[in-house]
């Protein structure tokens, strides 16, 4: 199974600033995903990141707010831009280790915006 390292594990940020979250996998994977879990809510898919192409965003999420990079098959970043208190959430990356296998998740980044 894939081992996923996510950084930072937590952060407290000021309103209006941006934060970039990193996701590193120990094996090459085609598909990487970014989720958000707001307090008391379910996990919601933000976007799918495939290497060599632009990320595909789900309804309600836009590239200007959540730009994503996928420079190679083992790494991705998610930036949360111009943050407001409503962005306080846990952000998780996940990967599909092999096609058809259940997604594996990183430990998440707990983000608080003051």
């Amino acid at each position, binding site marked *: 199974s894939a081992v996923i390292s996510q950084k930072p594990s937590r952060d407290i940020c000021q309103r209006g600033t941006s934060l970039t979250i990193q996701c590193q996998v120990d094996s090459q994977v085609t598909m990487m995903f970014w989720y958000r879990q707001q307090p008391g809510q*379910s*996990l919601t898919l933000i976007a*799918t990141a495939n290497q060599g192409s632009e990320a595909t965003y789900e309804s309600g999420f836009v590239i200007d707010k959540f730009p994503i990079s996928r420079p190679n098959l083992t790494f991705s970043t998610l930036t949360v831009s111009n943050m407001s208190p409503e962005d306080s959430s846990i952000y998780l990356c996940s990967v599909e280790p092999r096609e058809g296998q259940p997604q594996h*998740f990183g430990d998440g980044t707990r983000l608080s915006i003051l």
Partner: protein
Amino acid sequence: DQQVKQNSPSLSVQEGRISILNCDYTNSMFDYFLWYKKYPAEGPTFLISISSIKDKNEDGRFTVFLNKSAKHLSLHIVPSQPGDSAVYFCAASITPGTYKYIFGTGTRLKVLA
């Protein structure tokens, strides 16, 4: 519109007894279902899955039952152990391997020693 629902936010069970966690869904197109377990400060960990062509899948102490007509699935843990105390999420997707998982809001299970 919450397509996957876990109506019980919490559940307490005595060690050694059966834990039953429930999940309902509304989209009849869902045909692949998963359960994840999540400990505090960790990411969700895959537990067990079931395809809509089956009505039961078993893996050790964990069994998932699927009732397609009722759009309902359940996770049975027998016997329950204190280490099973965690938040359990059910998720659904349209086909196996499809990236888009729709998650429920989770049920917090507490197994009492």
